[in-house]
C-alpha cells in the first residue's frame, strides 16, 4: 500500500516539477477562465439580470472550459516525447497513472479556481465569504467529478488524431448531470439556502464522483494498453 501511494506521489511530483519549470498551464488556465467570465459579462446585462442567478452558471462554465485546457495538456505532454510509454513501462499498477494524473489535474484546477473565486466576487458583486465553507464543498465535489471523468477520457483522447477537438465532444455531454448539480447548488447557496437542504444534489454529485472513479479504475487498464 505504501509503495502504491509512493508511486502515485512520484507521478504528482513529476507533474508539479514540470509545471514549475514551464509555468505554462496554470497561467493559461487562469487567463482563459477570466476571459470566459468577461465575455459572458459582455453578453448579459447585469443591471437587468440578478447576478446571483446567472453568476453560478458563468462561474462553472469558466471552470469547465479552463479545466478542459488542463486536461488536454495533461496527457499530451506525456505523448510528445514518448513519456507515456515510459510511465507504462514502470513496474507499477496502471491505476497509479490514473490516480496520479487525477490528483495533479485536481490540484491544478483547484489552484486556478481559488484565484478565480475572488475575482468572481468582485465582478459580480456577490458576497461569497459568508458562505465560503459550503461553497468550497460544492467546488470540491464538482471539480472532483470533472477530473475523474476528464482524466479517463483525456487518457483516451490523447491517442486520437484530433485530440483537442474530441475531448470536449466526448466529455461535455457526460458532464451535464454534474454541471446541473453544482450550478444549482452554487445558486442556492448564494440565495442563502443552507447546504443541508440540498441533500439530493449532494448525493447526486457525490455518487457521480464515486461511480466514475470506480469505472475509471476498472477500465484504465484497457486504455493504457499498447
Amino acid at each position, binding site marked *: 500500500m505504501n509503495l502504491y501511494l509512493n508511486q502515485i506521489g512520484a507521478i504528482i511530483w513529476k507533474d508539479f516539477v514540470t509545471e514549475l519549470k514551464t509555468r505554462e498551464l496554470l497561467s493559461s488556465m487562469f487567463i482563459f477562465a477570466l476571459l470566459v467570465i468577461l465575455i459572458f459579462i459582455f453578453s448579459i446585462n447585469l443591471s437587468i439580470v440578478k447576478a446571483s442567478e446567472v453568476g453560478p452558471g458563468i462561474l462553472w462554465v469558466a471552470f469547465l472550459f479552463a479545466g478542459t485546457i488542463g486536461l488536454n495538456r495533461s496527457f499530451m505532454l506525456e505523448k510528445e516525447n514518448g513519456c507515456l510509454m515510459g510511465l507504462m513501462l514502470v513496474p507499477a499498477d496502471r491505476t497509479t497513472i490514473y490516480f496520479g494524473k487525477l490528483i495533479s489535474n485536481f490540484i491544478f484546477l483547484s489552484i486556478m479556481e481559488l484565484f478565480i473565486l475572488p475575482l468572481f466576487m468582485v465582478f459580480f458583486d456577490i458576497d461569497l465569504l459568508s458562505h465560503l465553507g459550503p461553497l468550497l464543498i460544492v467546488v470540491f465535489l464538482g471539480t472532483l467529478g470533472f477530473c475523474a471523468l476528464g482524466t479517463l477520457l483525456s487518457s483516451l483522447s490523447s491517442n486520437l488524431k484530433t485530440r483537442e477537438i474530441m475531448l470536449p*465532444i466526448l466529455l461535455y455531454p457526460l458532464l451535464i*448531470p*454534474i454541471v446541473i448539480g453544482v450550478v444549482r447548488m452554487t445558486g442556492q447557496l448564494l440565495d442563502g439556502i443552507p447546504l443541508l437542504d440540498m441533500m439530493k444534489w449532494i448525493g447526486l454529485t457525490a455518487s457521480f464522483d464515486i461511480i466514475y472513479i470506480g469505472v475509471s479504475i476498472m477500465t484504465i487498464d484497457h*486504455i493504457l*494498453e499498447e
Partner: protein
Amino acid sequence: MNQETAEGLEEESSILIWLTGLAFVAAMAAIFLFVPTEKTEGPIQRIMYLHIPSAWLSFFAFFIVFISSILFLWKKEREWDIYAYASAEIGVIFCSLVLITGPIWAKPIWGTWWVWDARLTSTLILWLIYVAYLMLRAQTDPGSMRARYAAVLGIVGFLNIPFIHFSVLWWRTFHPQPKVISSEGFGKGMDPSMLATLGISLGAFTLLYFLLMGQRVRQEKLKDEIDRLKREKLYSS
C-alpha cells in the same frame, strides 16, 4: 465463414425480412385505418405510434451497446465490438427519429417546437453522447485500440443515464412547466384500441431492430473477411 452457415444466415434473414415487412404493414393498417382519431389532438396524435416505438428502440439499442461493451472488455472478442457498433448506429438513427417526430408532434399540440422538459432534454443529451461514440469510432483506425476505446465510452455513457435522468428532472422541478408530458396519455389509461396499435407498432419496430442488426453485423463481418483475404493474397503473391 463457410458456405453452409452463410446460406443458413441468408435463410434466417429472409424470414426476418418477411416478418418485419408484415409487421409493418399491420402496424400501418392499425395506425391509419383501425385506430380511432384522438378526440382532442386530432390526426397528429397518430405520430405517437412512431414516436414511442422509436424511443423504445433507441433505449434498447443503447442498452445492447452497454452489454456488448462490457462483454468485449471481458472477452476481447471482435464479435462483441461489432454488436456494440451496429447497435449504436441503429440507436442513434432512431434517437434522431425521436427528436424529429417529437417537435412535429409538439408544435400543433403544445404550440412550440421544443420545451426544456426533463424527457426532451435527457433524450437530446443521450443523442449527443452516442453521436460522440460514433465520432470516436470514425476517428480511430480499425483495430483493437478502436474497439477498446469505444467499449470504455459505451460503458461510461450508459452509466450516465441515471444521472442525466435525475439531474434534468430535479432541474426542471424548480421551474414548473405546463404538464405537457401527461398528454401522451400513459398515466390516464389509454383506449384499448390505441394500446393494441401501439403494441403492434412496438413489435414491428423491435423486429426491425433485429433485422437491421443482423444485416449490419453481417456486413461488418464480410468487411473483416475481405480485409483478411486481401492481406493473405497480397503477401502470398
